[in-house]
């Protein structure tokens, strides 16, 4: 890469490709990363579309977000009005806002499927532990960004959601309450909180971009896993990313955009909460405080445990445990296809995750708490069983090539 004196540099700018290549080899870099020089397994299913979809969803959030930020005002007296100004007076403001709102939900749908794919095909296993770990970092950053963004319109759920979630940090021993005051910039969620949440919500997506670059870098070290979960050896097992996977991703994008567009134009607030169309009011607590749908499973874990400290620990633990997944599941076979015990357990885990989401939506009382407790136990039980399976599960015969 570095300049070598014995390599004569092309000075003829009419040979533009070589001229640029000698100065900044960006075209060959792209070609090696997502072009015809990057080889991918030829048997990837549509489940492998979700990585590039997530990338597109991220770019869309950033673009729409920038235009929203041009009209939004992070001030407790103006925030709610400025959103209405965007919806009513700004040219195409309603479209930009609906894209951003629905886009956030769809981004999470895509990433949840992306993660579930990795979980099913053992993509987190050696040698892709770092790739997976970077994914978990992205997921945490996304959750932070989503939470911060939901506060900005300064509706009732914005305000009370922010209050409930930031208050969780007060359980940290000794310094907890001080940390919360520091975070708020006052003694309650207020103007300083909103202002800094806006700044952070603006900045974090760019941090996500940086981690995505690392994620893709790590991906390129060993290439994609595949539905059979086996390491490929033959040259013929591979096809160039371009044009095969570029066109497949474009088709996948079209399929994705249809329900997305439908929501943007016909049900933009379907996934939101009606209370957020009421301006924030510190004196009136909503009957039920619920976070956005994509936090519900974790919210359910939080509320399932009657001791607040343990609940907070369990909630964060339920995500952080993903970091050590590659060391919990050390079964040599990657793909669930060939694991007669892991496969049903995986199904149970996903169904249970949905059940947790449902619990998170219900009031934290009576039977709902019992169900949430059982589901929390199953959630962690899944991870606890993995080391046992790694030792004793007998896999079906694994094919040697695809």
């Amino acid at each position, binding site marked *: 890469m570095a300049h070598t004196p014995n390599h004569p540099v092309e000075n003829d700018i009419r040979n533009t490709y070589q001229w640029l290549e000698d100065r900044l080899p960006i075209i060959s870099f792209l070609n090696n990363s997502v072009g015809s020089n990057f080889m991918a397994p*030829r*048997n990837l*299913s*549509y*489940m492998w579309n979700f990585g590039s979809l997530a990338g597109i969803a991220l770019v869309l959030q950033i673009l729409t977000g920038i235009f929203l930020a041009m009209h939004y005002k992070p001030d407790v007296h103006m925030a709610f009005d400025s959103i*209405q100004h965007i*919806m*009513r007076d700004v040219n195409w403001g*309603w*479209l930009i806002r*609906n894209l951003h709102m629905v886009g956030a939900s769809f981004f999470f749908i895509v990433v949840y*499927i992306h993660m*579930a*794919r990795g979980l*099913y*095909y053992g993509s987190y296993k050696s040698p892709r532990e770092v790739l997976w770990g970077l994914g978990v970092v992205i997921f945490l950053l996304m959750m932070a960004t989503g939470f911060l963004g939901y506060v900005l319109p300064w509706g009732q759920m914005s305000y009370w959601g922010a209050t409930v979630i930031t208050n969780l940090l007060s359980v940290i021993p000794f310094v907890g309450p001080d940390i919360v005051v520091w975070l708020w910039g006052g003694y309650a969620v207020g103007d300083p909180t909103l202002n800094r949440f806006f700044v952070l919500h603006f900045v974090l997506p760019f941090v996500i971009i940086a981690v995505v670059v690392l994620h893709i870098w790590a991906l390129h070290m060993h290439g994609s896993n595949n*539905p059979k979960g086996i390491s490929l050896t033959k040259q*013929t097992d591979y*096809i160039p990313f371009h*044009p*095969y996977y570029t*066109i*497949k991703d*474009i*088709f996948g*994008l*079209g*399929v994705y*955009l*249809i329900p997305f*567009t*439908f929501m*943007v*134009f*016909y049900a*933009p*607030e*379907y996934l939101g*909460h*009606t*209370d957020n*169309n*009421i301006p924030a009011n510190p004196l009136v607590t909503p*009957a*039920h405080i*619920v976070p956005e*749908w994509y936090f*519900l499973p974790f919210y359910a874990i939080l509320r399932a445990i009657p001791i607040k400290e343990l609940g907070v620990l369990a909630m964060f633990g339920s995500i952080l445990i993903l970091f050590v997944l590659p060391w919990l599941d050390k079964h040599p076979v990657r793909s*669930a296809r060939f694991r007669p015990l892991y496969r049903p357990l995986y*199904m149970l885990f*996903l*169904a249970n995750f*949905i059940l947790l*989401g*449902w619990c998170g*939506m*219900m*009031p934290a009382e009576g039977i709902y708490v019992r169900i949430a407790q059982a589901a929390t136990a199953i959630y962690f039980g899944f991870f606890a069983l993995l080391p046992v399976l790694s030792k004793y599960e007998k896999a079906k015969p694994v094919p040697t090539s*695809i």
Partner: protein
Amino acid sequence: MIRTFLTLAFLATWCLVPGAFAAGDAPALEKQQWPFQGLRGSYSKDQLLRGYTVFTNACMACHSIKYVGHRDMMRAGFTEAEVQALAKNLDMSIDQKLLTAQDDQTAIETFGKVPPDLSLINKARAGLADYTFALLMGYSEDPELIHHSFPKGLPEGAHYNKAFPGHAIAMPNPLTGPDLVTYHDGTPATVEQMAKDVTVFLQWTAEPERVERQHMGLYVLIYLVLFTLLAYVTKRAIWKDVKGH
């Protein structure tokens, strides 16, 4: 695995989404057919004007619509001359928003609270437009019904309402009987008609962009379906030599 996913996604939509609305403890609402719903739904100018008439005559004494003024109604197809005339009737300029003359202090003394701004009301309650309509139709003087919810009698200053959560609302029935207003198009002003019309007007104030949105959406969807079909055909053509496909 793709089949598993579709099943789970189906399951998730079924149990998660309707639950979001069932979670509250508000009374069940009757679903209405609204003209603004559906792929080609829209607002009729006549109905908006009727709803506006009800709002300005029967609601604006207490409620504001602070995000909407007469000029904004031009977006719904009213001409400048028409909105000028409407505003003049109320001694307003067309750039003023529809603010009530009642000040907060008086409201608190009379009702114990400030009547909420109605700009977004149809998006701010579970049940949406169906709720607003049910609320307006939900007043009752039936002593048995009242006794059932309030064995010790209604709280001081409250009115019984079937749709309001808790059934005791501070707002007196605004639509006490027919012909509170005279419609420009001769439609008989029954209580139900007035409730429907003002609800539709409030839907418009909540989502003035709705018709543009729905019409544009159809074209975008048609475009995307064509785009996706083309992408699919191209994908098939490019992949035809790959083994196993």
